[in-house]
């Protein structure tokens, strides 16, 4: 197995704020990893580093074997089209239909003109493919519905379908369940984990919801103040480490979740 991500002493600063502090870790292709930690611990910055929209101030980062600092604009763009990202706020175009949003997933691999054509007259093949993807995520009947008319959970499904249509080698998801109710959150995380196994892409998810992370991910990475404080299987995570992670007792953790 080759590595999806290699971080070596990576530091990322925004002004005086050190968001990521000398992090070294490696994630293999095909792994399912959850980043856990309280808000402000650096999860979002880590995701941004991994999808190459932020660049380390110190240290080296390579994605799918490509060192980020050396990439030209064009090669970086091509690299990004191999890594899918589901941002926290989904980033859907609300007044386009589901199919139009999903088809944009492949825009990184297509020309600008082709993308405009895709929006106006999607090809037969793409339409069929997107219909299958929407069926897989459970909203097949919403193919031609405007996104603004969908519920929060359904919008999330559209964002997942967009990521799947991209056929990425890695999928990054930033707090995918922050805006939905607990029952739906569990469904979404399970769906992502299942899809990752089924289709064989690497999955990295940032979660503040510890129980979900423990249930579905074989590897957890705990962050605090931009440093890695835990890296391993969920059953190795001790209450004591949890406490240092959140500075809360385990009991409080449970009620909080």
């Amino acid at each position: 197995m080759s590595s999806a991500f290699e971080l070596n002493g990576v530091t990322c600063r925004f002004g005086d704020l050190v968001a990521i502090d000398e992090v070294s870790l490696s994630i293999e292709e095909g792994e399912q990893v959850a980043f856990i930690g309280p808000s402000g611990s650096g999860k979002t910055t880590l995701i941004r580093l991994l999808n190459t929209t932020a660049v380390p101030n110190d240290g080296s980062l390579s994605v799918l074997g490509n060192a980020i600092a050396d990439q030209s604009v064009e090669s970086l763009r091509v690299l990004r089209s191999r890594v899918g990202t589901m941002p926290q706020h989904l980033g859907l175009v609300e007044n386009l239909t589901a199919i139009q949003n999903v088809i944009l997933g492949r825009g990184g691999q297509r020309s600008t003109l082709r993308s405009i054509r895709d929006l106006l007259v999607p090809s037969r093949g793409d339409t069929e493919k997107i219909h299958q993807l929407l069926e897989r995520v459970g909203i097949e009947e919403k193919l031609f519905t405007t996104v603004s008319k969908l519920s929060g959970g359904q919008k999330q499904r559209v964002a997942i379908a967009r990521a799947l249509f991209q056929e990425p080698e890695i999928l990054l998801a930033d707090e995918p369940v922050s805006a939905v109710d607990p029952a739906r959150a569990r469904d979404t995380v399970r769906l992502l984990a299942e899809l990752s196994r089924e289709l064989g892409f690497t999955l990295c998810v940032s979660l503040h919801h510890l129980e979900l992370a423990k249930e579905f991910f074989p590897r957890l990475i705990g962050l605090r103040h931009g440093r890695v404080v835990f890296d391993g299987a969920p059953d190795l995570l001790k209450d004591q480490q949890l406490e240092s992670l959140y500075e809360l007792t385990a009991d409080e953790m449970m009620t909080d979740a």
Partner: protein
Amino acid sequence: MNSTSGKWGRRRWIVLGIVILFFLCAKSLGLTPAGLIPPDETRWERAGAFFKAALSPAMDYQDENVPEDAPPIWLKGLYGLLLTLKFAFGGMSLAIPLALIMGFFGSSSWWPEPRGRILDLFLRGAFFGFRFLMSLLRSIHELIWALLILSAFGLSPLAGMVALALPFSGTLGKVFSELIDEESRDASTALKAIGHRPLQTFFVAMLPAALPNLITYSFYRFECALRSSAVLGFVGIETIGLYIELSHEEFYYNEVWTYFYLLLALIVLVDFWGAGLRVRLNSFKGGCEA
């Protein structure tokens, strides 16, 4: 929450200043209540006749010399409305493509990031150049554009349409670029993260997201174009404004009111049509800025 606490503070002084400003203007212009009364006997009579005619718009020509076989006045009025609509349609169909081009260069949301120094200078140059061009176009009223174009090229339908299109493209272009730049950039950031080019996100995310607002705003400007097109009648272009002016010259006040009511009805109709469009497009920004 300070602003909702009910304290007036500095707002009181702004309101007071505006009221004082009004009296200063009134004094300098010689605006007195007495000016609202017609100055002499003939004008008194004229005003009386004029407002009485408002209650009985003409159903027939007041002019005795109109030939027997002339179309009835309401038909002539409707024809005038059609001509008014024609210039509005013609002018807007020229103005919108112009505005889209100028608005594109007057918007910064498609600029690549990062970019070289030369490209950056070029983009900023184009940005300010087109913004200035748009300001210049809209700083001259359509009636004056008409005056200039008619003087330079002579009377023709195209001249009227171009005169309308130039200032309107300036206003539309400015508002287009602002509406696009004000849209949320979440979608375009998300798409750039999966390899879209900046220009590509402009066309597939920013523009589609702003489209409902662009459409409702264009529709509001269409309504303005109708009014302006009627006014172009006063420089000799055949619209309903010309009929109003001609009838007024002969003191046919009832005819004036007939044409005026027809024009008003058309504009109100278009206003309601636009309101319907706004509701169906879920857009509440149209018509607010210019």
